[in-house]
């Protein structure tokens, strides 16, 4: 396991924090780490901040993520990786669509000409508010406490996707599925960062697979023409035990 000292912890929304640490390894946008809270658990976390000072942005869900959110400056952060296929950085205008902590993995691909659609349950859950490099930020909340009430697809209807050369998308699977079904009809390129339970991170345990592809290794980034091959996408998934259930 690698470890680095936590350099700084910054609030990224009401509950999520960004944990900064120094690691010289080259990590590319869209890649993730398997982050270990000793004695608690290990979970996949995307890099929100690249460069010499790296950052991960974590929201407390369960035990492991909550334990990580409790880290303070000077504590050690344990992890292995980076793993996974990164985004490719297409030229042209970028449409960034992030739901919940999904925005964390997209944060490093935002540039000045990007439009960011950021969504969350409510306004205080929106990540990185006011911290985007671009001016165009459309906020979407389930409860309408900020921006458009609804889902990212509702925000998409307010813009013309074909003004963009590529959309980078990450968030809960059903959100991504609806975004995919909407955007596939336009001309822009698509790069989806898929999310499923990941136990090993190295393509051996099958917990993250979709249509025979391992998200941890073949993905998490998938391109427009590949998504139809992920036959389980938006349809069914398996639990920690491998039990399959329908998402519809």
């Amino acid at each position, binding site marked *: 396991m690698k470890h680095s000292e936590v350099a700084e912890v910054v609030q990224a929304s009401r509950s999520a924090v960004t944990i900064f640490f120094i690691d010289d390894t080259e990590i590319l946008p869209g890649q993730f780490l398997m982050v270990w809270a000793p004695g608690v658990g290990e979970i996949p976390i995307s890099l929100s901040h690249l460069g010499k000072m790296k950052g991960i942005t974590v929201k407390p869900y369960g035990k492991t993520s909550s334990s990580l959110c409790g880290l303070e400056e000077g504590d050690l952060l344990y992890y292995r990786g980076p793993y996974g296929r990164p985004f490719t950085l297409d030229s042209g205008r970028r449409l960034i669509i992030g739901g919940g902590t999904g925005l964390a993995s997209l944060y490093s691909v935002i540039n000045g000409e990007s439009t960011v659609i950021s969504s969350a349950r409510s306004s205080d859950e929106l990540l990185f508010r006011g911290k985007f490099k671009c001016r165009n930020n459309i906020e979407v909340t389930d409860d309408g406490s900020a921006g458009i009430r609804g889902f990212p697809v509702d925000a998409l209807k307010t813009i013309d996707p074909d003004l963009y050369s590529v959309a980078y998308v990450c968030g809960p699977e059903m959100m991504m599925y609806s975004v995919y079904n909407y955007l596939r009809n336009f001309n822009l390129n698509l790069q989806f960062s898929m999310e499923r339970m990941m136990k090993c991170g190295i*393509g*051996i345990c099958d917990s993250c*697979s979709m249509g*025979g592809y*391992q998200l941890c290794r073949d993905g998490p980034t998938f391109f427009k023409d590949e998504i139809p091959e992920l036959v*389980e996408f938006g349809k069914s998934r398996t639990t920690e035990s*491998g039990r*399959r259930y329908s998402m519809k």
Partner: protein
Amino acid sequence: MPDISVRIADIKFQNPFLLASGILDENGYTIRRILNEGAGGAVTKSIGAEERTGYIPPVVVPLDDGLLNAVGLPNPGIDGFANEMKISLEAGKPVIGSVFASNADEFIKLCRKMENYGAHAVELNLSCPHVKGFGSEVGSDPDLVEEIVNSLKSEIKIPVFAKLSPNVTDIIRIAEAAGKCDAFVLINTVRGMAIDIAARKPVLSNRVGGLSGHAVKPVGIRAVWDVFENFDKPIFGVGGIENVQDAVEYIMAGAGALQIGTAVYSHGRGIFSKISTELASYMEKEGFNSIEEMRGLAHR
């Protein structure tokens, strides 16, 4: 071109490289893809009677020369696995149902279901080294092994393969107890552990795990060698196979077919088609016409 197909217990495999149990074989779509991409057959994740979530991650520790794992036999339970078997079998290649249980009756129930699902054979996990009450705890008791294998052979029509553990004092004694099986599968992982010295804690949430990959190849070769010397029965060699040299080493030690696990991680899913091509070229170059011709050659 030399023929790299093999026939074990009357099941024909287009090539001798099967996906080993527990590696990318919990989800039917994954098994189907791996078979379509070139594996000669697949062994499923070990399935039990009841649903189990397995251990909390970390469940794997990548090491320089191998992999340590304690996944904890997660599985949806035999009933929940019906659909995955169906999807897996769509590839039209042999799928072997791996099962674990703690006594003969349970094994029979599981194997009957696997038979109904269309499994070409069952593989008994008598060897997982890190789950209480199952695997090697069962597989190191010769009387229990004998009872399980014998009763299965009278109850089940499809072939029964016995997967044995290297973590025993005398593997020959256990193989004897499993003597009625149709083939041996050697080996499962070697008990091991890793501690992170900065965290001052074992890395695996289960602490103890099983070592696999290149580091354990000599252990597997020796198990296959010894069992081949003592029994006239097909053997699946498994443990650290990464390239054609490793495969040939197992075949010359006595294996009639092979399984690949950890190398799927270290070399990617493409390993099955790559190693099959390499094996064919190797055989052509060395003048071997069939795998049977090479089998056990180092014993001469």
